[in-house]
């Protein structure tokens, strides 16, 4: 059971206890209606409409006076402060509202500007990307052309070198063949030529030719 419920139950029980105390003395008290003691205690004779307090002009006049004083006191000491406080609170709320409206308008303006700038930046970036792509493609094409040109030049150069080497080699072979022929002829003139001599001469000449070639 929650504590507040216990408090409530206690309060109800106390109330019931206090209320229940009321009728007991009423029962033990002298008879009420028509009883002079009771009438004196309750300010009336106990008959007719006395129970309404209809003859209690003093009570009516006193209520008027007290209520009048209460109105006067509150109009002097409470309402001016309450009014001032409410006006302050109202102006605070209104200024906060105005400020909030201004802030909202400013935020909307900033947002629009930021969006505009974002759009402009996006367009600029797109243009830059397009340009970069074009540049890259142009560069790629140029590089490819240059590469092909270099490759062709290299091929031509290699071809020329091969041709030159071949020419030099041919010339060299021819020269060696002539030398060989001369050598053979020289040796043949110095001795009689047989089949064995012929073969030996050829071998010696080739070996000599090789030795010359190695020396060269």
């Amino acid at each position, binding site marked *: 059971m929650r504590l507040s419920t216990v408090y409530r139950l206690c309060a109800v029980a106390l109330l019931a206890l206090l209320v*229940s105390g009321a009728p007991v003395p009423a029962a033990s008290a002298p008879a009420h209606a028509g009883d002079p003691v009771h009438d004196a205690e309750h300010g009336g004779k106990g008959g007719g409409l006395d129970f309404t307090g209809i003859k209690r002009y003093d009570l009516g006049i006193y209520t008027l006076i007290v209520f009048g004083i209460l109105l006067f006191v509150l109009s002097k000491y409470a309402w001016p402060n309450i009014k001032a406080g409410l006006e302050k609170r109202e102006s605070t709320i209104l200024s906060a509202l105005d400020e909030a409206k201004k802030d909202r308008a400013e935020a909307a303006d900033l947002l629009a500007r930021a969006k505009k700038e974002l759009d402009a930046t996006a367009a600029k970036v797109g243009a830059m990307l397009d340009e970069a792509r074009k540049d890259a493609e142009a560069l790629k094409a140029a590089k490819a052309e240059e590469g092909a040109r270099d490759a062709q030049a290299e091929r031509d150069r290699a071809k020329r070198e091969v041709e030159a080497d071949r020419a030099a080699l041919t010339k060299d072979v021819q020269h060696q063949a002539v030398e060989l022929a001369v050598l053979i002829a020289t040796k043949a003139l110095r001795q009689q030529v047989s089949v064995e001599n012929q073969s030996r001469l050829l071998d010696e000449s080739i070996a000599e030719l090789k030795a010359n070639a190695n020396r060269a």
Partner: protein
Amino acid sequence: MAKKIDPFSHVVDSNHFEILPTAGLEWHGLELGGVPLKFLILITVCAVGVGVAMIWLGQKMKSGDPPRGKLWNLVESLLFFVRDKIAVPGIGEHDANKYLPYLTTLFLFIFSMNLIGMVPFLGSPTASIMVTAALAVVSFFVIHTSGIMEMGTGKYLKTFIPHIELEGGAAMKVMGGMITVGMAILEYATAFIRASVLAIRLFANMLAGHTVLFMILFFIAMVSDPGYQIGFVKQQPEGVQNLIWGGMSLFSVVLVSALSLLELFIAGLQAFIFTFLTAVFIGLAKHPPH
């Protein structure tokens, strides 16, 4: 001889406070020149309570800060309740704030006088017709003064006269005139009747409510006190009488506790009705229906 029951004896004004009479906790002799002072004291206590609460609220609200704390919120909520649920609906947005001080004071004063009657050993001053009549008189003057200030005395008094035009000959015109006079008399009487009804409604509700509570508790005396004991119980043996007394005590206390909660609601409701009708009548006086 059986004693007579006076059901109003504990509701009307008296010269004593009976806190717990069974324990001898009583205070008698509160009178001045034979006039009981109990209600005068309670009216003063309520007025001082309302005054202190509103001045305190004024001091708190002066800064313009929002309310903080339970008590501040509670008192301020009563003020705004009167403004939003009574003054504005009854008088209209334009004039509501002008009458707010009067209506708030009236509501809190009546509410506190109704509530103080819920304290068992005290009493409700609003259960006296002269107290409610005094407040109705003040409302009567506020209502009609506001009407006169709005449109002038002559014009305001003319608003009570209805415009009736009957087509036909002279006889019809005479009849129309008679009806107009008759209705004007009724309308003027209504102004007084409205104020009287304000007083009687509040007084009757508070008197009846407290009387019912008293009578339900008095059932205990009717089965236990030889002076009030009813015949059926008297004829029973003592054991049965005790049993009836126990059952009746439990029944009465439980029922009175439940009805006391209802009375708490009625204390607020009657204060609301008195103040709301005053606001409506002020609104009608300032802007009469055409």
